[in-house]
C-alpha cells in the first residue's frame, strides 16, 4: 500500500453507533483514530476506546480542537452539536454529521448484522459436521441407561440395585452435559460486549466441542498453556474462532495424529497456537484458505467460510493470524492479541 498520510478521525458520541464505527474504523488501513468523546463516561464507545488505548473525553471541544484533525464524525444526535463543532474545529477538518452520519451509521449497522448472520450460518453448518460425533457420545451413555435399567429389573439385591441406579444417574448427567454444551454453543450470541477473557479457558472449551468433528478418534493431544493474561474479546466469537481452527486441525489429520494447543504471553502479546500433524497446506494456497468459500472438502462437507470468519473475528478483536505449514508434515495457526492496556 502506498505510504500516504492517514486520515485522522475523531468520533463524537459513544453510543451503539459510535461503538460500531469505532470497531470498524480501527481496522481500516489509512485511518488514524484520535479519540472518542461522550458526556457519559460509562458509554460503550468510551469503554471500547479505553480498551483500544484511544483518547477518551467528556469534553467535545477538547477533542475537536486537536490540530491536524481531518474528519469529525458526529453521531451524538444532539441538535446543538453542529454549531459547537463549527465554532471549535480546526480549519481543515471536515464534518460528517446529520443525514450523512446517519447513512454511514446505518451502513455500518447493516454490515454488522450481516456479518453476525454469516457467523451464525457458518457455525450452524459446522455443527452439522459434529452430528455424528455427538450421536456417538450420547448413544454410549444411553446404552448404559438401558443396560443398567434392564439389569435392575432382574436384580433382587438392594445394594446392587442402588449401585446400578447410581450408574444410571451418572450416565444421564453425561448426556445432559453434552446437550448443554452444544445448545450454548449453537445459540445466537446476544452479547456484543468486549470483556476480559482467559484464553486458556476458551481454548479448552473449544477443544471439547471440536472433538466431535471426528468419529474415528485416535488423537494425541498436547496442551501447553503458559499464557495467563486476559484479553479483551467477545467470548462467543473467540470460542467460535477457536472451534473452527481446532476442527480444521482435527479434520486435516483425519482423526489421527498429534494436536498441540498452546498459549503464551510475551512482550505485551498473548499468543495462541494450534498445531496439527495433518496433511499440510501447499505454499501457493496459504493466502487462498482465508478467502470466503475456499474449501478442499467434498461438496456438502465444508462451507469454506471457517477461516474467513476466523480472520474477521480475530481482526475485530485487534489480533493477528498467521499460518505456517509443510505438506505432509502439518500446519500451525498462530493468533496474537495485544495485551497492552490490559489490567494484569
Amino acid at each position, binding site marked *: 500500500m502506498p505510504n500516504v498520510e492517514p486520515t485522522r478521525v475523531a468520533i463524537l458520541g459513544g453510543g451503539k453507533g459510535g461503538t460500531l464505527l469505532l470497531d470498524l474504523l480501527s481496522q481500516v488501513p489509512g485511518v488514524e483514530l484520535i479519540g472518542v468523546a461522550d458526556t457519559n463516561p460509562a458509554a460503550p464507545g468510551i469503554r471500547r476506546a479505553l480498551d483500544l488505548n484511544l483518547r477518551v473525553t467528556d469534553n467535545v471541544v477538547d477533542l475537536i480542537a486537536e490540530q491536524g484533525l481531518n474528519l469529525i464524525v458526529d453521531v451524538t444526535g444532539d441538535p446543538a452539536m453542529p454549531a459547537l463543532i463549527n465554532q471549535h474545529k480546526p480549519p481543515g477538518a471536515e464534518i460528517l454529521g446529520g443525514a450523512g452520519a446517519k447513512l454511514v451509521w446505518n451502513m455500518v449497522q447493516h454490515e454488522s448484522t450481516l456479518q453476525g448472520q454469516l457467523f451464525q450460518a457458518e457455525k450452524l453448518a459446522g455443527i452439522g459436521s459434529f452430528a*455424528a460425533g455427538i*450421536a*456417538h*457420545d*450420547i*448413544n*454410549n451413555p*444411553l*446404552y*448404559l*441407561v*438401558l*443396560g*443398567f435399567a*434392564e*439389569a435392575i429389573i*432382574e*436384580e433382587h*439385591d438392594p445394594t*446392587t440395585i442402588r449401585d446400578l441406579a447410581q*450408574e444410571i444417574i451418572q*450416565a444421564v448427567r453425561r448426556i445432559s452435559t453434552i446437550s448443554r454444551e452444544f445448545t450454548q454453543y449453537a445459540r445466537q450470541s446476544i452479547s456484543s460486549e468486549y470483556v476480559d477473557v482467559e484464553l486458556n479457558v476458551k481454548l479448552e472449551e473449544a477443544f471439547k466441542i471440536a472433538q466431535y468433528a471426528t*468419529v*474415528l*478418534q*485416535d488423537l494425541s493431544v498436547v496442551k501447553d498453556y503458559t499464557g495467563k493474561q486476559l484479553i479483551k474479546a467477545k467470548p462467543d466469537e473467540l470460542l467460535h474462532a477457536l472451534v473452527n481452527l481446532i476442527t480444521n486441525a482435527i479434520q486435516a489429520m483425519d482423526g489421527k495424529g498429534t494436536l498441540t494447543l498452546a498459549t503464551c504471553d510475551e512482550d505485551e502479546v498473548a499468543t495462541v497456537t494450534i498445531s496439527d500433524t495433518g496433511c499440510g497446506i501447499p505454499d501457493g494456497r496459504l493466502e487462498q484458505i482465508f478467502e470466503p468459500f475456499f474449501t478442499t472438502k467434498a461438496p456438502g462437507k465444508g462451507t469454506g467460510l471457517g477461516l474467513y470468519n476466523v480472520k474477521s473475528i480475530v481482526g475485530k478483536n485487534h489480533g493477528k493470524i498467521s499460518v505456517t505449514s509443510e505438506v505432509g508434515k502439518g500446519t500451525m495457526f498462530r493468533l496474537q492479541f495485544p495485551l497492552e492496556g490490559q489490567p494484569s
Partner: protein
Amino acid sequence: MSESGTDFLFGTSTGNGRVMVVDDEPDIRKVVRMTLQKAGYDVLEAEDGEKAIEVINTGENRLMLDVIICDIRMPKINGVEAIEYLRKEYPNVQLIVLTGFPDMDMASSFLRQGVVDYLVKPVAGEKLRDSVAKAMNQREIHRL
C-alpha cells in the same frame, strides 16, 4: 450378579461360547458382559483394537474365541482397522459391530466384509443376545 470376578481367560466355561467385547469404555463392557453372561456365554474384555488383537493372539484364545463385539471409535487401533485385521487373520471368528455411530455407509461396508451385525447403541439386551446367537450359528457352520 454372576461371577464377574473370575479370570476370563481360564474362567469356568459354561459351554455356550466365548465372546470378546472390545470397547474403550469400561461401563459399556460391563453392560455387554452382564447381558451375555445371562445367556451363558463366557465374556472376555479388551479396551481397544490393539489389546483385542493382543488377546486373540495369545495362546488358547486363538482357538477358543467364537465372537468379537467391537466398537468403532476407539484409541490406538480403531474399529475399522481392527475389523479389517480380524477378518483377514481370523476369518472364522464372527464379528459384531456395536457402536454409538449410526452410519449407513459404514454399516453396509462392514456387512459386505462379512460382519454379522451392525448394532447401534443403545441396543436392548434381547437384541444383542439374538445377534450373538446368530453369530454362534454361523460360527458352527464355519466349523463344519
